[in-house]
Every structure is written in structure tokens, then in C-alpha cells.
């Protein structure tokens, strides 16, 4: 029989062996984590809160200790004398517990045995009658413990003092400091993700000064490589990737600015409080800093279900469910990352183990009920950002200027007069067009006395109008489209839709030479309109996307105008025929009812844009047509205001283009059935998480179990979504939020030691790990919080400790006591992660390109897919394309099609939070590291480098060992590897060395 259960059988065997030798116990069994779930599963139904068969109750410590009608059940330290063990192991069916169902598995029995023999330690909070309350360790107030005075000779800082106390308790001895090569490789990879160079090794080994290591640490922390390394850790935690991750796995072209924000924030050592606040509410808290808006990429980092949220129609169960799940992803990201709580477990019921109610959960959903994920614009240049804010503010205040301010002030009067003159100069150049006009949808077209065309008759769903004409102008720099009201149109138009609206999907200008031939599309530079419907700006009419459009709702019953500026002047040979195509593909008869076109040859066509109109006010264009003397006071006010705004719009339009970032937003251009929420969407508690069973409406708030912090947010108005997030940011960064400070120091510790003080970095709750060094954790948390939240200071403290600097060699005596090294009697060795391996290979070949930032590098071929998701081809990709030599943090991260090499090395794909990376060993991983085209080609590059740098094979092998392993080969190694290289080529030797354990592990 080839079927084997080795995984299980083997584990049990090892378990029994270790337990057999428990005189020197291997590890402590933790009641809450290990034993209580077993009792809950097998015993509580008859010996719990509801029933106490034979008077025995096992869900509370005191009752369990007391025993039942038949006496004690548990005899601490004596599993052999404990009736509990006797009953769960009995082969007599009448005695065996539980009486129904399967007996406990042998491993479960062993855990209970070991727990009893270790003293049946049952902490107070293990009572199952109520979820962990404030007495759960992670919710207790943070008080900084005194640093123990029992420091040993090896101690370098407070960390070592805390570690030493525990070691003494367990009879353990710390390990000696690692040698300099090991230290250098360890700390360099740890802080920067890159391997040290042979030269750096020589320098460090030769440095006689006492603080050589400390200076090395300072240099590494100051290196820009540090931010790249730790940003990648952060990207794991928050499941950052650059595609949507569902069936419509569309690339996010603008996710990368957030990655650059992370790298910059780590390199700048941004105080943690600020870092947290920016990522939750940077736009509202720090409007002067455009990077704080980029930080909102955090909330949008996870997957997004495009087909459910964009493609399917509104008001369906599927759509509502998708919105709940979308917010679920956001709050899971926020709460797991910053507070290390598992709030997502409370979506369908109160948290089974932690004090998190379903109400808490839905209150958190309400915090984010006003935001979606979409591209939002920002100015990367801080000066431009300030300028745009200033002009925008001025434009807003221009709209609010009183008649007194506009007309009573001489300086203002002369400014307005000058602007009117400027406007006239720009506008007077418009020449109306006499065109032949057709409607593809079959509408009638009637030329009006003012030169406009009125559309009527058949009312199709969609339509395309074509205006064909010639002009006597020698050149054209812009085209103006006026859409005009008319009594024949619904609500007087200017649209044919029953509400008077229109949607212009695309505006196109085509030129056909007199000689004939195909019409050529004339490129456009930009567009201005006097009014844009919310989410339907005029830029959408020239973005090449048929699904976006310009609209004017609710400003119906009025004339509107849009100006389309050509990228460069179109010089016209006589006889050139022009046509303007107005594509209106939105559907439901969002069609233009009456339209007129004009052309200009003005050298400053941007100034030829229309005056902005104000809802309900007089029409500026009409006022302008009359002489100054004929204007009423109201009209003069309206005109002055319009001219000021027109001027500011021009200045705004002249600013450099904005950059987009994929982030949380409450305002964005809608697309299909995906639209911004005008105000936060109502959130209801859902019975059993079922979208069809809504209960009470939730109000914004966070966890109710953090002592000293109010759960409900005190918000003046319920509709201000920004205020909700601002309150959330304040809640998270309150000094009293004990979870946040414990969470971050533990997370940083995890990355340095490959295991946290609590080994579940995203779960400090009841089902998470217990701290191996609780006092140290609290000491670090308070130290970090109260000294300004500097991550670099925390790193420095940790990596300069004697604990960190220990050798990772296994001491047999210590291993017998603490085989798992929870007490840190040695350093943990670890397998390098995917990025470190890939980057180190590039370092060895000399190809590594250290350029920072910018759009992610697509290390695959991309072609149009059958539907939304593109075809992604890693196999055919040219591994020598320059972008392939960038650091791995700059790779484009495709969720449902990850890079096969990186995936085989456990790089997460961004579908789930990854607070801990596994370090698996598989046959496919071995194949990837041997045969992936990247490794194969880099082996050749490395060989070329060696050939160029040394002249004999042994010298080349020596250099190879120094580059890859950071050491000299032994005499035997030199001869073996040289012989292999002589026989099969240096590239094969490089490839094999990249596959050694010594390369992929760091000690």
C-alpha cells in the first residue's frame, strides 16, 4: 500500500518521543491555546455551563479544580492519577469519555497529559463562561516594567536583561556572539534585504573599533535600501498587490505611488502615530501634504470584486453582499494590521473567544461606509500641491464674494474689467461652423436660424452625430461645442433624455485631406466645460473610453458649452474636410437635443474656454452680449464672479498634470454601475452575517473592549465620511490603545527573530499565542510609544542587543530544555525569503539595478485577454530586459497570476493578509531554483562577471564563493567546484551554488 499517513503518524511519533523524555520538558503546553479547545470540543456539552453531569464542570477553573460528585478530576503533575485522563483513555465503552462519538485522538490525550504533568496550569482568563475580558493580557493597561537588574556579563541593553531573567528561570545559557561574517550577513539582510559585498566583509572584519557593529547598524538604517526592505514586509501584512484579484483581475495602473509612499515613510522614519493616521485618514488630517492622501492606498490595497461592484446592476442582493465584503476587507486590513485583533471573526456572530461583538464589527463597517476604491488624483510636487490648493480656495471664495466686494472695490473693478477684455479677445475669435449633420440613430436634424442643429423624431437608445464641414480658417486650435436648450426638448433640454440630460461619450475631430483618403483623427490636449455633472466631467469625453462621458445634470433647461483644445494647431490646406463625431453610447437616450459648433485659430485656445455658469443665476454669456450700461446690478455681480472663476480655472488648468493613486476615495468618476456614495451607505448589523437579514443600523465606532477608549465615535454629523475616518485614526493612535503599541513592537520583533514575542503577529487575542516575554513586550511597547514612535530606534535597540547578536548554533543541552528556542538562547536561523534570494542573485551577477520608485516593472509579457483580465506570460518574457534587474520590491504584483519563481519561494500573492511568511520546502521549489529562466540566465551573467574579473578557474571559484556565500572556499571545495566548472562551465557552477543551503539560509 502506497497510501501513507506519514504526516500525522510521524508527528505523533515525535510528539510521543518528546513527551517520553519530559523530565527535561520540551515545551510548555499552554492551557488556553492547547487544552481549552479540546475540552470545549469534547467535554463542555455535558460538563459546562448548561449541564454538569455528575456535578462536574470543566469550563471554569475553580469548578474543574474542585471536581465533581466522584471527587477530583485533575491531579496536577500526576496525569497517571488524574481520573480525567483515565476516563478519556479508557477502552471500556461504558467508562470512556466522551460517551458518544469518537474517542479523543492520541495526540489530544498527550497534550492533556503533558499539561497536567506540567502542573495543570489554568490561568484565570481561561474561563470559558465569558469571552476574554479586560483581563486578557493584551488588553491590560500598558505599564512599563522596571528593567531587571540581574543582567549578565553578556548583556548589552534592557532587552538582554529581560531575556536573561527568563533564561535563568529555565536553566538556559545564552550563546556566544556570532562571528563577524555571520553578524554582517545577518544584519545586512535583515535591515536592507540585500547581501553584504565581499568588500564590506573585509572592511568590517578589519575594523578594530569597539563600536564597529553599531556603526554598521547606523549605516544600514540610513541606507535607502532599508525602506525598500521594510516596505515589502508592510506590503505582506496589508496584502498589497496591483490587480483586483477576482474574475476581472484588472491591473491597477496607479497602485505603485502607495508603495513609494511606504518606502519613503520607512526611510524618513516617520513617527508611527503619523504613519497610522495617514493611512486611515491622511486626506482629512493632513490636507497640506499630498503624500498623506497617497497613504490611503493602504485601505485600497486588498482585492476588489469588479464584476460584482461594477458590472452587475444596482439594487441586487449580489451587489449589496459585495459591498459588505468589500468593507470587510478594509476593516480586516485596518484592525489586523494595527491592532492585531481578529474582528473579521465577528461578522456572523459575536467573536467566540475575544470580547468583540457583532455590533463592534458593524460599527467598524460604518466607519468606512462612505469610501470605495478607485484612482484619486494628487500632486507629487509639494509646491504644485500648495498652488492648487490655493487656487482652488480662491475659486471657492470668488464664488462667495458679495456684490459689495465685487462692485464696490476699485481694484477689483479694474481687475474684472481687464479680465473681460481678455475674455473678449480670446472669445471673439470663434467662428461658427456650417455643417452637414447626420444622426446614425435615425433622428431628424433641423438647422436653426442661429446655426445650431435641433435633433428630433426617432429617439434611439444610443446615437452618433457626425458634423461634416469645411472652414476658411487657415488653422484650428480648438473646437467649441455648445449644447443649447430648446422648448421642444424634455425640461427644455439640452438633452433628449426624459430628465433633460445628455451624455457625450466621446468627442472626435477628424480631418480628410482635399485629395481624399482616410479621415485622420486629430489629437486633443484637453477640454473645458462651463459645467460638469458630478462624476461625469468633460475630460471623460476625450479619454478614449466609451463607458465614461460628459453630462450636465442637474443643470438642465440651460445652455452649456465645452471647449476641446487641440494638442497642436491643425494647419488646413484648402479643401480639407473636417468632421466632428459626437459619440453618445451611454444608453437610455442620453442624447444631445440641440448643438452648435464653432472653431478658433486663437494662439491661446485655453483662454477661449466658456465662462463658468452658476446654477440659478443669470447666464454670463448672455450678459456679456449686452453693453455694460444695459446690465443690472445682479448681472454685473454674476459676470464679475464668472470672470474671476474663469481666470482661476485657467491658472489651475496650467498646472502640471496630476498623478493618480489607487486609494480609498469618496469622490471619483463613476463607471458603469460603480458610483461614489453621496453620503455614507447605511450599514446594518446582519443576523448571522446574512445580507437578507438586516437588524439595527450600525453607527461609526471601534472596539468596545479597549479600556479607557470610547467605542462609539462622537460625531457632530453622521454624513461626514471623513470625520468617521478621522475619529478612527484618533482611536487607533490614542496612547491608551494598548493593542496598537503591543502590535507594532511585536511585529517588528517578528521580522528580526523570525518569530514574534507573541508568535501570532495578527492575533493578540485569546486564540493567538501567549507572549514568551510579556514584560519585555510591554517594556518595548511603552518605550516605543513614549519616545516618539521611531521604528529605526526600535530596530537599533533590537539588533544591537546581545540576544540578537548570538550565534545560531544549536547547543544540545539547551535544545533539550527549549528545543523551540522560545527563550532565545540562540539566534534563529532562517531561509531567505523570495525577494532576498532574487535580489542576492542579481547582486552576485552584478546586474542589480538600484533605481528607486516609479511604476512597477512588469516582469512578464502582457497581451489582451479574452475579457478584462489580460493574458500574462512569464515563460516568454525576456529575462534580460532592463527592468528585470530592479529590486524585487518593484515587481508588478499580479494577484491571480503570481511569478512562478517567487510563488515557489512563498512570496504571498496578496489575496490574504500575510503577517508571517512560511518557508516551505518542495520539489517544485527546487525545480524553480534550478530551472527558472531568471536563475539560469543570471548564472550565465555571474559567470561572465567572474571571467572578466579573474583569470584562472580556482580564482573565479574563490570570487564566486565570496560573492554568493561571503566566504573563501575550503581547499576541497576549491578543487571540487573548479573541476566541475572546468568540465561543465562556470555558469553551471554558479547555478549550483545558488541552490545550496548555505546560500538560501542565513544564520
Amino acid at each position, binding site marked *: 500500500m*502506497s*497510501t501513507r*499517513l*506519514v*504526516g*500525522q503518524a*510521524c*508527528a505523533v*511519533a*515525535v510528539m510521543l*518521543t*518528546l513527551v517520553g523524555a519530559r523530565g527535561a520538558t*520540551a515545551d510548555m503546553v*499552554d492551557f488556553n*491555546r492547547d487544552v481549552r479547545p479540546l475540552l470545549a470540543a469534547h467535554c463542555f456539552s455535558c460538563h459546562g455551563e448548561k449541564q454538569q453531569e455528575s456535578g462536574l464542570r470543566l469550563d471554569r477553573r475553580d469548578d474543574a479544580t474542585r471536581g465533581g460528585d466522584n471527587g477530583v478530576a485533575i491531579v496536577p503533575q500526576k496525569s497517571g492519577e488524574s481520573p480525567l485522563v483515565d476516563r478519556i483513555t479508557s477502552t471500556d465503552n461504558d467508562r470512556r469519555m466522551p460517551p458518544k462519538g*469518537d474517542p479523543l*485522538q492520541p495526540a489530544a490525550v498527550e*497534550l492533556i497529559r503533558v499539561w497536567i504533568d506540567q502542573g495543570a496550569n489554568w490561568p484565570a482568563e481561561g474561563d470559558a463562561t465569558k469571552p476574554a475580558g479586560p483581563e486578557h493580557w493584551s488588553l491590560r493597561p500598558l505599564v512599563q516594567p522596571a528593567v531587571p537588574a540581574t543582567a549578565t556579563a553578556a548583556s548589552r541593553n534592557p532587552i538582554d536583561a529581560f531575556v536573561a531573567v527568563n533564561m535563568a528561570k529555565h536553566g538556559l545559557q545564552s550563546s556566544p556572539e556570532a562571528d563577524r561574517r555571520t553578524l554582517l550577513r545577518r544584519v545586512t539582510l535583515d535591515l536592507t534585504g540585500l547581501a553584504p559585498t565581499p568588500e564590506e566583509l573585509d572592511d568590517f572584519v578589519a575594523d578594530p573599533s569597539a563600536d564597529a557593529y553599531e556603526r554598521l547598524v547606523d549605516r544600514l538604517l540610513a541606507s535607502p535600501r532599508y525602506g525598500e526592505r521594510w516596505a515589502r514586509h508592510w506590503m505582506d501584512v496589508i496584502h498589497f498587490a496591483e490587480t483586483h484579484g*477576482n*474574475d476581472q*483581475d484588472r491591473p491597477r495602473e496607479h497602485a505603485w505611488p502607495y508603495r513609494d509612499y511606504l518606502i519613503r515613510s520607512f526611510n524618513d522614519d516617520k513617527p508611527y502615530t503619523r504613519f497610522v493616521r495617514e493611512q486611515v485618514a491622511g486626506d482629512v488630517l493632513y490636507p497640506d501634504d499630498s503624500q498623506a492622501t497617497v497613504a490611503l492606498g493602504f485601505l485600497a490595497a486588498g482585492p476588489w470584486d469588479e464584476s460584482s461592484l461594477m458590472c452587475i*446592476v444596482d439594487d*441586487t*442582493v*449580489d451587489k449589496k*453582499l459585495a459591498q459588505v465584503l468589500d468593507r470587510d*476587507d478594509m476593516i480586516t486590513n485596518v484592525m489586523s494590521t494595527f491592532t492585531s485583533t481578529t474582528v473579521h471573526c465577528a461578522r456572523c456572530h459575536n467573536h467566540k473567544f475575544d470580547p468583540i461583538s457583532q455590533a463592534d464589527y458593524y460599527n467598524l463597517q460604518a466607519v468606512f461606509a462612505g469610501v470605495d476604491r478607485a484612482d484619486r488624483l494628487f500632486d507629487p510636487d509639494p509646491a504644485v500641491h500648495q498652488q492648487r490648493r490655493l487656487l482652488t480656495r480662491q475659486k471657492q471664495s470668488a464664488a462667495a464674494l458679495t456684490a459689495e466686494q465685487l462692485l464696490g472695490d476699485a481694484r477689483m473693478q479694474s481687475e474684472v474689467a481687464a479680465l473681460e477684455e481678455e475674455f473678449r479677445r480670446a472669445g471673439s475669435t470663434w467662428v461658427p461652423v456650417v455643417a452637414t449633420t447626420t444622426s446614425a440613430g435615425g433622428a431628424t436634424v433641423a438647422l436653426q436660424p442661429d446655426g445650431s442643429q435641433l435633433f428630433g423624431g426617432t429617439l434611439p437608445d444610443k446615437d452618433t452625430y457626425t458634423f461634416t464641414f469645411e472652414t476658411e480658417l487657415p488653422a484650428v486650435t480648438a473646437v467649441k461645442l455648445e449644447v443649447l436648450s430648446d422648448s421642444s426638448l424634455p425640461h427644455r433640454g439640452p438633452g433628449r433624455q426624459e430628465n433633460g440630460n445628455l451624455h457625450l461619450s466621446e468627442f472626435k475631430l477628424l480631418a480628410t485631406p482635399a485629395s481624399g483618403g482616410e479621415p485622420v483623427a486629430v489629437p486633443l490636449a484637453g477640454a473645458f466645460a462651463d459645467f460638469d455633472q458630478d462624476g461625469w466631467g468633460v475630460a471623460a469625453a476625450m479619454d478614449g473610453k466609451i463607458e465614461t462621458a460628459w453630462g450636465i445634470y442637474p443643470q438642465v433647461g440651460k445652455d452649456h458649452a465645452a471647449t476641446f483644445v487641440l494638442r497642436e494647431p491643425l494647419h488646413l490646406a484648402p479643401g480639407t474636410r473636417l468632421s466632428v463625431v459626437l459619440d453618445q453610447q451611454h444608453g437610455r437616450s442620453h442624447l444631445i437635443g440641440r448643438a452648435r459648433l464653432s472653431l478658433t485659430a486663437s494662439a491661446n485656445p485655453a483662454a477661449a474656454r466658456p465662462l463658468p455658469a452658476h446654477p440659478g443665476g443669470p447666464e454670463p454669456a448672455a450678459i456679456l452680449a449686452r453693453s455694460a450700461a444695459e446690465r443690472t446690478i445682479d448681472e454685473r455681480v454674476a459676470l464679475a464672479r464668472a470672470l474671476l472663476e474663469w481666470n482661476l480655472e485657467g491658472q489651475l488648468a496650467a498646472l502640471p498634470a496630476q498623478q493618480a493613486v489607487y486609494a480609498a476615495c469618496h469622490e471619483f468618476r463613476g463607471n458603469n454601475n460603480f458610483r461614489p456614495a453621496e453620503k455614507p451607505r447605511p450599514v446594518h448589523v446582519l443576523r448571522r452575517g446574512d445580507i437578507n437579514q438586516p437588524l439595527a443600523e450600525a453607527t461609526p465606532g471601534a472596539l468596545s473592549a479597549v479600556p479607557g477608549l470610547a467605542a462609539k465615535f462622537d460625531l457632530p454629523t453622521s454624513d461626514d465620511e471623513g470625520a468617521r475616518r478621522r475619529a478612527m485614526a484618533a482611536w487607533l493612535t490614542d496612547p491608551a490603545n494598548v493593542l496598537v503599541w503591543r502590535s507594532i513592537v511585536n511585529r517588528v520583533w517578528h521580522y528580526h527573530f523570525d518569530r514574534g514575542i507573541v508568535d501570532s503577529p495578527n*492575533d493578540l487575542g485569546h*486564540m493567538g499565542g501567549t507572549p514568551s516575554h510579556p514584560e519585555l513586550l510591554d517594556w518595548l511597547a511603552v518605550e516605543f510609544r513614549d519616545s516618539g514612535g521611531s521604528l529605526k530606534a526600535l530596530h537599533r535597540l533590537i539588533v544591537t542587543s546581545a540576544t540578537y547578536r548570538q550565534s545560531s548554533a*544549536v547547543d544540545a543541552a539547551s535544545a533539550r530544555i527549549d528545543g*523551540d528556542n522560545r527563550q532565545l538562547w540562540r539566534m534563529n*536561523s532562517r531561509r531567505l525569503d523570495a525577494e532576498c534570494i532574487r535580489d542576492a542573485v542579481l547582486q552576485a551577477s552584478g546586474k542589480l539595478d538600484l533605481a528607486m520608485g516609479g511604476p512597477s516593472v512588469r516582469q512578464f509579457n502582457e497581451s489582451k485577454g*479574452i475579457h478584462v*483580465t489580460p493574458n500574462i506570460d*512569464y515563460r516568454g518574457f525576456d529575462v534580460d530586459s532592463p527592468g528585470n534587474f530592479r529590486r524585487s520590491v518593484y515587481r508588478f504584483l499580479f*494577484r*491571480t*497570476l503570481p511569478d*512562478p519563481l517567487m510563488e515557489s519561494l*512563498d512570496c504571498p500573492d496578496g489575496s*490574504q493578509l500575510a503577517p508571517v511568511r*512560511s518557508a516551505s*520546502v*518542495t*520539489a*517544485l521549489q*527546487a*525545480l524553480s531554483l*534550478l*530551472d527558472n529562466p531568471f536563475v*539560469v540566465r543570471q548564472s*550565465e551573467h555571474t559567470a561572465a562577471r567572474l571571467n572578466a574579473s579573474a583569470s584562472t578557474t580556482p580564482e573565479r571559484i574563490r570570487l564566486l564563493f565570496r560573492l554568493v556565500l561571503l566566504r573563501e572556499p575550503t581547499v576541497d571545495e576549491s578543487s571540487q567546484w573548479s573541476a566541475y566548472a572546468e*568540465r*561543465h562551465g562556470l*555558469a*553551471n557552477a554558479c547555478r549550483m551554488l545558488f*541552490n*545550496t*543551503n548555505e546560500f538560501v*539560509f542565513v544564520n
Partner: protein
Amino acid sequence: MSLTRRDLLLNLGSGFGSLALAHLLGRNDLRAEPAAAGDLNGGLHHRARVKRVVQLFMNGGASPMDTFDYKPRLSELAGQKFDPGGDTKVESVTGSPGFKVLKSPFEFKQYGQSGRWVSSVFPHMARCVDDLAFLMSMSSKTNVHGPASYMQNTGFVLPGFPCMGAWIGYGLGNLTDNLPTFVVMPDAKGLPYNNQGNFSAAFLPVKHQGTIIRPHLADPIADLFPPKSASFITPDSERDGQTLLAAANRAHEARWSGDSRLEARIASYELAARMQLSAPEALDVSRETAQTQSMYGLDAAPTAGFGRNCLIARRMLERGVRFVQVWSGAAGPSGNWDNHANINTELPPIALATDQPCAALVQDLKARGMFEDTLIVWTTEFGRMPFSQGAAGRDHNAGTFVSWLAGAGIKGGVAHGQSDEWAWKSLQPTWCYDLHATILHLMGIDHTKLTYRFNGANRRLTDVHGEVIKEILA
């Protein structure tokens, strides 16, 4: 205690040595341990009926009322506004103006001893009905491809959860050292909705990920061999290289004794070498007789692609692959089972491409005695609407759809569940949880006990649901 080399080979990637207790102490690995005694026939919690599974996944939402779920009522109501009565709201996710009842354009007949109704699009499967157990009224939580595909594959509508093949590999381990435990063959036209998300190990160790095989390509398994362009890599360089590498790793391990991960990595290279030998042989359908190839439809253009993948699936199963998933249809709004525009023209070609190969797999496994320990599962992500989208298409419908099972432990010719008179909703819904629980049950796994701790929860393939469907068990 020392682990044998074989233990290591079979146990790559999971914890052992000093890590074993840590694992048992409940970080992640929460598989309940097998009972100490008794032959479970490879099962984890009870005796297994099934050792290996082939799942045929019809991507896009195979229409029930045009294939296996005969609804004469639709012919009576054809062209009328669909009215289920009461105040039930009729929804349609991509829009079905008018909600006009659309009858099936295909002729239905009864087949076999069991008298199952099958439409004219499946003439070959129709002859197998007495071997198949039908789930006549599966139901899904969502009408959208992505979440629905995730749900049928992983039990969750969100990305990031392990699929059934990964769970089974995690629970039961491998049957062979020479081939991957879990193999996926996508349609030659492309990956399904969610791409590789449907075959993901998610938070389970990456070794449980589905290995993608694309038999139509020159290199069907990525990185199995070096790129052809790398002429410096030869069989000799590989043989000597492996020796050199092993020697280096042994010497290193001697300096860092006590770390089982080092030993595991050494073993992984031996396994990799075995896979290089075994996989090409398993993929070589030319070793099959002409008669077998013809049975799977390799000699006819419409059936050749899916037929070859089904035949390779059988060869994989024979050689000890535990779970094979074969996909029909790539992602996208057409060219698969997502028949929005015209059921009469879109369904027959994709049905034709799969019908004979599916039936051949049933017959072939029976003939070879593999029906004794192999399970075949035919599934899709949801059904289609009884009313029309456009003139003659059908929109997505999570309400009811059909799956079938055949093989070891399955009672042939039975049907479980029932849809309403229009095939619009289930009368007694069967969920993916029930299907998954049943498959795990047949493999000797109690679905409530196969768990993995991730991010605060003990996750299961069946979430907190799932009932074994006893009616279809032999």
C-alpha cells in the same frame, strides 16, 4: 528519534523533528490525528472509499434546463413574462429586459434503467446515467462568476482560501513521490475566472498548490526543465551538478546539525529529479492504444483538446496523483458555458467538446477497475435563468444547477434534490459545502475535523456548514 529518509521525502514542507511539537501545540496544523489502530484504507478519520479524484469543471455556469434538468413547464410558458408568483423579486445580474420565459431548444429523452432525462446536447453522457449520481439542485450564494467560482472551489466567495484539491493534499498527503499530489489542467484557450486563484493553496503551505499542466504547450510544466536556450545545461552537467550540490549541502548540514529543514531541502532535490523522469511519461498519450485515444475523442477536432486532458487525467490518477482538475472553458463572456447571447448556438459546441470525453472517462475507469477507488465529479459554478437575456440567451442563476458524481462509493442512477418547475430556484438546496463534505467523507475525512488555523480562525473547506449527502452513497 531519527526520521527515515522516506519519512522526509513524504513529509516535505510540514514540520518534523523539533518542530513537530510546535506544530502539535497548535500554531496552524490542526488536523485531527488518525485513530491509533484499524485500517483506514488511507483515510484520515474513517475508512476511505476513494483514494483519488478527478473533477471536471464546466467554467461559466452550465445551463441545467438545457442539459439534465428537464422542465416541460418552460415550453408551456415560453414567451410569457416570468412570474414566480407572490411578491418574490426577480433579479438578473447583467440585465434581462422583459424577463420572458425561454424554453429549452433541445430535445429531452429518458435514458437507462434510472430513466434520467438528458437533452440532446449530451448523447454520450446520456448512456452513462446509470453510473452517475445527480445533484439536481445545487445552489450558490452569488450570481457572479468570480465569487461563484471561488465558492465552488474553496467554499468561500472571497479570494484567499484553499481549494478542495489543496485541502485533500494537506489532509491525506501524497500517493506517489514521482508526481505532484494535485494537478490542474486548464482549458487550452486559457485560465478560468479567477485564474490560478481557483487552484490556490492560499494559507496552506505552498506545496499544496495545484500544479498547472498545459499539455498543449512544448513545456507543459513550468520550470520542470531548464529553458531550451540554455545549451550549457546538459544531462551530464545535471548529473554531476546534483552530486556536487548534495556534497556541499551535506557538508553544510554537518556544520549545522539539528536543523531538519536542511535535510528536507536536500531531499527535495532528489524528488525534483524523480519528477523530471516521471512527468513526461505520464503526459505521453501516444503510449495509449488508438482505440483508447479514439474513445476519448482525440481523433476528432472538437473533442481532441478536452479529450486529451481527460486521458492525461486518467494516466495521472493511475500513477498516483491524488486530485486532478480538468477545466472546460476559459474566462470571458463567451466560448465557454457562459451562454448569454444564444443558448441554441452557444451551448452545443462546448457541450460537444466535453460530452464524449466525460463519458469516456467514466467507461475507461470502469473498464480498468479504477472505479473501485476513484471518484469523478462533474461541476460548474452556477446555473442559468429560465427567462431570456436578449433574444435567446440566459443570464447567470445561482438558484439551481446540476452536478454529478460517479465512481467509488457512489450509488449510480440516483438523483438528490429538486429544483422548482422552472429550474429557477432549488426546492431543497445542496450547497458546495455538502458536495465538499461528501467528497471528503468518501476519502475518509470528517470535514469538520480537517482544519487549519489562520488569522484567528480554525478554517475548514466547509466553513461552518456541510452535510454529507448520504442518499447518493453506495
